[in-house]
């Protein structure tokens, strides 16, 4: 600041801005999710679409209600897109044919409790979508683990708009006909029955790269999710550090385990392509608010998410561990941020002034 002038008066420099905004960031993320979501709609038909709509609507309602309660401006905050995105991510992680109240409760819980109760955008310690998912899983284990095999729109027996709405509102008719285990769920059950994976694989649901298997919207469209995530990296919305570290954090132990005892440990591809790993690595662990703010901290964070996911899947009681892993690492984020700080110019990592050692030359 030019000290030739009277000090202490507000100067609103800089007068230029890079042009980004929160709304634009959120919009880009949603754009990246769009292909996977549309594909998911096609794959699981109208019920998936209805559940998605319910989830988002209630997420928005929760946000609006909380804002009203706190007498904050509702419209601008609702329009920043963050609540919409939270609902969207939650919907992608639910069983596509789950009843409407699962989405409704989850959406409300995500924005009202997991986000606004913590102080709103930017203040929540945990990822709202994942908190809601875990809360649903613990409270309603049955509908939350009821997966259906894909029944693409237009195929024989696929419910139409109205039938789809009936499924979402009133439940699935003839349960056994359409439900199916996810790959991870199947592996867990078989292992717990004492059947090793080599034998279990014979009647396992096939691992499919194009999503021809049971799972959530975000799971089956694995490649589209990954594509969207990579697009986000190129758009500069997220950096590669968290996804890379998280995938590596799963792949490495999976590779070692599978190499040592394939009958006990699932292989790398199964780990990476099933469950919410890709959605988690690119869209959930990378949540700005709940991840560390340095590149270095993000590498640690991502690796932790990956490793924990693998540990929970392999040794824990649940077949899937992404949500738990991310939440655990969310809890560690403040600690990581405290320990891993950028190096300040002219100082060492501990904050002490650097020695002017290289003064010569």
């Amino acid at each position: 600041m030019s000290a030739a002038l009277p000090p202490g008066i507000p100067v609103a420099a800089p007068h230029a801005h890079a042009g980004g905004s929160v709304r634009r960031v959120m919009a880009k993320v949603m754009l990246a999710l769009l292909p996977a979501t549309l594909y998911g709609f096609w794959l699981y038909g109208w019920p998936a679409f209805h559940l998605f709509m319910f989830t988002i609507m209630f997420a928005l309602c929760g946000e609006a209600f909380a804002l009203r309660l706190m007498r904050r401006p509702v419209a601008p905050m609702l329009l920043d897109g963050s609540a919409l995105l939270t609902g969207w991510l939650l919907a992608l992680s639910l069983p596509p044919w789950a009843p409407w109240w699962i989405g409704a409760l989850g959406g409300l819980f995500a924005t009202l409790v997991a986000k606004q109760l913590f102080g709103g955008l930017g203040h929540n310690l945990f990822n709202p979508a994942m908190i809601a998912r875990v809360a649903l899983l613990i409270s309603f284990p049955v509908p939350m683990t009821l997966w259906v095999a894909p029944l693409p729109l237009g195929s024989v027996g696929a419910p139409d708009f109205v039938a789809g709405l009936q499924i979402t509102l009133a439940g699935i008719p003839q349960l056994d006909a359409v439900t199916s285990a996810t790959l991870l769920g199947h592996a867990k059950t078989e292992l717990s029955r004492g059947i090793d994976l080599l034998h279990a694989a014979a009647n396992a649901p096939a691992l499919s790269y194009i999503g021809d298997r049971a799972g959530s919207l975000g799971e089956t469209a694995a490649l589209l999710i990954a594509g969207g995530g990579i697009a986000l990296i190129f758009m500069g919305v997220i950096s590669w550090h968290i996804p890379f570290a998280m995938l590596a954090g799963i792949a490495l132990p999976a590779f070692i385990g599978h190499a040592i005892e394939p009958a006990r440990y699932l292989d790398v591809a199964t780990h990476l392509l099933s469950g919410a790993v890709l959605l988690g690595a690119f869209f959930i662990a990378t949540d700005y608010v709940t991840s560390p703010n340095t590149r270095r901290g993000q590498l640690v964070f991502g690796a932790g998410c990956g490793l924990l996911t693998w540990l929970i899947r392999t040794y824990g009681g649940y077949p899937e561990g992404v949500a738990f892993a991310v939440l655990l690492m969310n809890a560690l984020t403040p600690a990581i941020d405290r320990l891993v700080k950028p190096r300040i110019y002219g100082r060492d990592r501990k904050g002490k002034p650097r020695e002017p050692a290289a003064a010569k030359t």
Partner: protein
Amino acid sequence: MGLIEKVFSLLEPAHWGVHPADRKRPAADVPVRGLPLPARLYVPLQQHIGAAARPVVLFGQTVLKGQLLAEAQGATSAAVHAPTSGIVSAIGDISAPHPSGLSFPAVTIEADGDDRWADAGIAVDPFGLPPQEVATRVAAAGVVGLGGATFPSALKLGLGLRAKIHTLIINGGECEPYLSCDDRLMRDAPDEIVDGIRIMLHATGATKALVGIEDNKPEAIAAMTAAARDFPAIRIASVPARYPMGSEKHLFSALTGQEVPADGRTTDLGALVHNVGTAWAVHEALRQGRPLVERIVTLNGGAIDMPGNIRVPVGALVADVLAFVGLKTEPARLVMGGPMMGNRLPHARVPVVKGTSGILALTANEAAQLDPGPCIRCSSCVRACPVGLLPLEMSARIGIDDLNGAVAFGLKDCIACGCCSFVCPSRIPLVHYFNHAKGELAAQGRAQLRNESAKRLAAARIERLARDTQEKAAAAARRKAERAAQKAAEKAAAGTTAAGAAAEAAQQASKEVVA
């Protein structure tokens, strides 16, 4: 640790600063035009860091161009000269180039239109002068840092003599968007700049000069390289265009690969940083005997009809210059300096000063609008900060009035470059908070000093009072003892026991003194 450190540095390449759209052209490519002499010039007495200059002219006095108007006052100050010939029509307060619009002492000159120079000193060979004399002449010419910091240049040169400088770093970075006055100067007057650099080498005793120019100015690099061809001590170096490359420490690091220790200066590492404009002013002062009374100012921004670089006498009003280049539309914001660190002007009736690198008339589209939202912890600011700070954490601390917390996060290392505010998607005026907090801390520091000195004074007073009472008591006791001794002496004839009584009395008196 070493290995982990290596792996991490591979995974996260060092990155600092931002790449704002530079918007330097087409203004940079237009030849420099001279501003027609305004009828009246308002020359502020303080155009530099330090104390205001003391006027040495009288109301109504006739002055010539380049004549001393006000002399440096105090250790850090700079002289001010008449930018044209005319009559001193006022000495008093005018509005200063600052958003506050606060007034500022200035000398007003009614131009006579002749623009007649005072007799220049006899030209001498600067290389025949002792270095100290060069600095003295630079001081006499009122040269200050023209990069915006406006630190008196002669003081810096003197610093060079004391601090064993071996390298002179010449800042041709001009990293602020929109501005091109240094670019223009390097293209148009490279020989003068190189001559100024050689004089400064002589004045500081440095053996080499590195001129850092951002690679978005190829014409300037070419012109300077050609001008410096015959002087192996001067090297022209192209540096990547990146804001804030023009920050002293960052340019120094980019050119030498070293880092200035925190709380230190480049001079600690034997390097002195000067701006190219300063080199030019040094040349003018020593070769022509001409003080700094005009400069090149970039007029730019979407609201300006004919953007370009204008030669402007110090003291001309921004309004005069704007009238010369014309306005297409009413500007949404007037800025003196660059868009990243410049000051917003309350109105155009403020004078151009030595440190004015640019005047921007921005349209509503260009001017950053602030409508701050909550921090979404996106860490864009962390990546942008050239110093390696955590702006989001500092602003959160400042938000809850925890200034010490902000200092713990490095507030005092913040160079107020504005990169963080520039990138923040939530449009939080981060740098504004930091400047505010720094001001607050400085005020607290001053208050504390005041408190301490008040406490010292009070303590001294209590001590003095105690000493006074003690001395009075001692004196009283002494008198008592004397009286007792006298009485004893009177009784001395009566017998020897009296002597013992006198001694006893004296002893008692001394006990009282101790008590």
